[in-house]
């Protein structure tokens, strides 16, 4: 028997196509007052795609959850914090929180905590491009076009290529 455990090869789907599928999942549940809030940095790219695909007129909110992370005590402040910008009143609004990857759920928790410091939204929904499993909190996505079970030693990364197109890569950690 082969002692070395073989890892199945993961086929990475087209990220731009996933954005179109994600927009299709959100569209039927869109309300007139719905606004998108992207989490820096991958979530902001996805939110910008969705904003165009859904033809939304209102502005996108951007948040950086660095000031709300639960690993600040262990890892310190993130070296490149971006300013959060919520250019609308969140009071009684339906917010769709957008991120690229849903993993432990800790980023989502931090983002929800931050949003409540801007007011009391009527509803927060979660839209992600990929759900890679291994949740550590009771959080699940309302809209997700791709579910995949990835080993914790792999890091699923969304990046923007030179032409501005979104693409997936898989980084393996020892």
């Amino acid at each position, binding site marked *: 028997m082969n002692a070395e455990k073989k890892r199945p090869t993961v086929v990475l789907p087209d990220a731009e196509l996933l954005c179109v599928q994600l927009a299709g999942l959100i569209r039927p549940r869109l309300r007139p007052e719905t606004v998108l809030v992207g989490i820096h940095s991958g979530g902001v790219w996805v939110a910008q795609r969705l904003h165009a695909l859904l033809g939304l007129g209102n502005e996108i909110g951007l948040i950086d959850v660095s000031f*709300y992370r639960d690993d600040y005590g262990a890892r310190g402040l993130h070296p490149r914090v971006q*300013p959060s910008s919520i250019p609308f009143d969140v009071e009684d609004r339906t917010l769709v929180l957008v991120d690229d990857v849903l993993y432990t759920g800790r980023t989502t928790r931090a983002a929800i905590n931050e949003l409540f410091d801007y007011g009391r939204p009527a509803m927060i929904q979660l839209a992600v491009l990929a759900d890679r499993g291994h949740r550590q909190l009771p959080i699940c996505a309302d809209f997700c076009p791709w579910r995949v079970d990835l080993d914790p030693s792999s890091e699923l990364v969304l990046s923007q290529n030179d032409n501005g197109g979104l693409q997936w890569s898989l980084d393996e950690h020892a």
Partner: protein
Amino acid sequence: MRNPQLNANGALTHLLSIEGLPREVITHILDTASSFLKVSHREVKKVPLLRGKSVFNVFFENSTRTRTTFEIAAKRLSADVINLDVTRSSTAKGETLLDTVDNLVAMHADMFVVRHAASGAPHLIADHLRRLGREDVHVVNAGDGRHAHPTQGLLDMYTIRHYKQEFTNLVVAIVGDILHSRVARSDIHALTTLGAAEVRAVGPQTLLPTAIEKMGVRVCHDLRSAIRDCDVVIMLRLQNERMNGALLPSAREYFRCYGLTPAVLALARPDAIVMHPGPMNRGVEIDSDVADGPQAVILPQVTFGIAVRMAVMGILAGN
């Protein structure tokens, strides 16, 4: 010798002086401050970063304004803030500085914000904590003697960057009592580190330290020629107690020679900004028409100061 402000991993663990801080560290603090600036505009003006941490404001010298801005900054980071007026309590009873520190460490302090009349006091505390093996306790210098006032220097840089974006082409004049000013020293170190084109130190001979040109500044005694083509004018407070000595003849004569009036400011670039660390003496170093005029950015400095102090405490407590 290791930089006393950095830990074994090279991360900022104390803020004692701008001198010796790498340019990247200064830029990182300013970048982080811009994210904190928006927190003060929200419904809830607080982030949970320092929740459960205790910040002790230990002021061995009076300062309501600086202490208050540190207190606001710490509270907006959700820290518990304890203000100690040590001049009226322990020190008056004969306790030494380091005994005071040991007592506060025994109360589980996480950060000290220290102001002291003696230059080097915050460094002494940081060194003491290192020898105790307590590198998890952080020190912020809130002004020590004539040495340094690094958070004021950083908020001045934040203000300049906010209005002027880049430092490389800037001509900056620092005017007044540079001899006694820790603000001037911190500003000079920051400006030279960030690459300002020219820094002019302006004041009467009696209020300029000897050999100040070694800090990389041009010395000027005539305000009118010094202010010509400046992008930034930083006015320093003339402390009233200086009037009693032999350094100056009178406040009125000082104003005539070194007071910033609209006529003098007109010699600077038309888009020049005027800064002042406060508290101002109107009619001594600055004319009311300038202080309240369109080029003054003195109140924005105060607002930026909160965000800069939040950034400093947020970065230190995480390292």
